[in-house]
């Protein structure tokens, strides 16, 4: 007996209960074996083994991998069954095997053999829900940062000593710098757009908005910090619901303050979309029309950029 591990996909009997033999198969049996063999080849290739090998064994019709390849295939099988596999090709092959096992009257065996013994997988595969790839969810991210501290200097830019003791420079327009002079040496609460130069450790900041008190500042800060803890869909949902409830309360000044934070070329296009869709009924309402028109401009810029990329991608295919 072979002491190394093996992973086997076997077509054992035909619907009449007769043994299937590799040397002489009816077409349906050959097709079933082909599905298994194709799956085995792909699973071995994708197993991560540097030198994967597969084989065919007679007796019944057996597609087989041995040794390390077999162990890696068994590991990937466990991931697929748990719904945790992110590789669509691996999941697809297992789904083909699953469909084959569920479909017709052939007798199959699917076994993982190791020093621990024989693990029979066919029944589990047959009864499992259709294998699907694990969805990959991205984090919601944006460039908005909130800074509180003391205004220490106003020149071409404004300089802030943050509550954390960090000296930072915030770029701003001249008119706003002039306005800022009256807050010198006073506490300030601001929102900025941060960007990191590719070759630099330090970020640079662009002034977005100033808050008149700490409570107002904290309201926006908490909202955005919560968003950053979410995945993209959850964050977009939170944005949608927040705007919906503020619209219902007719809290237009807070909404104008909120929309200001998204008036920047770095704002994610899907965030802009959600904001525009939910405020559609207010696009001619004086209380929000100006802000909505500005957000539309940022949307149009990004839309053109994305559309161009999409066109390029489609042409390349």
């Amino acid at each position, binding site marked *: 007996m072979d002491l190394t591990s093996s992973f086997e996909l076997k077509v054992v009997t035909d619907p009449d209960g007769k043994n299937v033999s590799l040397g002489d198969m009816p077409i349906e049996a050959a097709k079933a074996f082909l599905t298994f063999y194709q799956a085995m080849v792909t699973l071995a290739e994708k197993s991560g083994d540097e030198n994967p090998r597969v084989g065919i064994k007679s007796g019944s019709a057996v597609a087989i991998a041995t040794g390390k390849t077999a162990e890696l295939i068994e590991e990937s099988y466990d991931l697929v069954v748990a719904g945790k596999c992110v590789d669509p090709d691996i999941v697809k092959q297992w789904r083909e095997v699953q469909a084959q096992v569920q479909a017709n009257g052939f007798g199959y065996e699917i076994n993982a053999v190791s020093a621990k013994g024989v693990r029979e997988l066919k029944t589990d595969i047959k009864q499992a829900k*259709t294998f*699907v790839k694990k969805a*990959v969810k*991205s984090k919601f991210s944006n460039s908005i940062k909130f800074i509180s501290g003391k205004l220490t200097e106003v020149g071409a830019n404004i300089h802030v000593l943050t509550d954390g003791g960090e000296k930072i420079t915030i770029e701003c327009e001249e008119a706003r710098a002039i306005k800022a002079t009256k807050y010198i040496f006073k506490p300030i609460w601001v929102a900025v757009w941060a960007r990191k130069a590719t070759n630099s450790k330090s970020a640079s900041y662009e002034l977005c908005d100033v808050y008149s008190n700490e409570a107002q500042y904290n309201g926006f800060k908490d909202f955005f910090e919560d968003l950053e803890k979410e995945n*993209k869909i959850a964050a977009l949902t939170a944005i*949608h*619901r927040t705007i919906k409830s503020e619209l219902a309360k007719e809290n237009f000044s807070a909404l104008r303050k909120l929309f200001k934070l998204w008036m920047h070329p770095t704002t994610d296009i899907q*965030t802009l979309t959600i904001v525009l869709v*939910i405020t559609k009924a207010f696009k001619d309402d004086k209380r929000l029309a100006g802000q909505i028109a500005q957000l539309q401009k940022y949307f149009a810029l990004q839309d053109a950029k994305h559309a161009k990329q*999409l066109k390029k991608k489609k042409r390349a295919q």
Partner: protein
Amino acid sequence: MTTRPQSKNLIKKHLLPSKPDSLPEKFVSAIVKINKSGTINHAGIAVGSEEGQHMFHFNSTSLIKRELKYYDNYYQREFETIPPYLADAFYVHCMEAMDSCAPEYGKFYNGTYFKDGKVINPDEEAPFLMSCVGFCLGVLNGWDTAENYIEYEDWTANNSLTEAELRLEQSNLKLLYSYLSDEELLVNIRRIKPSEYLASAYLASTPISKASIEPIATILESIALDLKEAS
């Protein structure tokens, strides 16, 4: 009008089986069911987003979200008007629309749409009725920055229902909404077929007219017959 004549092959090329393996990761599509006799008889919206691949539809009693399956006879076409890079936002829009209403079934559509996460009924007095297509149009109207996705008034009781269907629909509605006059009901009795809705996905400029939809819908109906025979 920007409608170009589209050949059957080109139309067929963009109609994909709604099986997760044959679809791109991100999409917003019109999805339809082709039944055993080769008729396109049900419609919904399919969205591929970071949450996975889902179908949203109205089954004549409930609004339903479900995962796309590997083994059924649904086909889909990406909306020309909704690019894949907005699919996550569209998913959120669908979820919020679903949560916001409980329609009843009827061959009736009065331009209702889901806006600001709630249902906007242009005629407050009118009943909140819709078909599977009506639900999709409601969601699409709420998304489009133009007021309407489709020129729904191009469809009338006379040009979209048979006489028998119309009589039946009228008597059903009369029972439910006795406070409305025959004329008030008649204005919004219409049937936009699933094949016509599917055809709208091929068109890029809104609002989409019945005239631009018709030639594509006819071709799609013939493709559906071929697909029935092939399956």
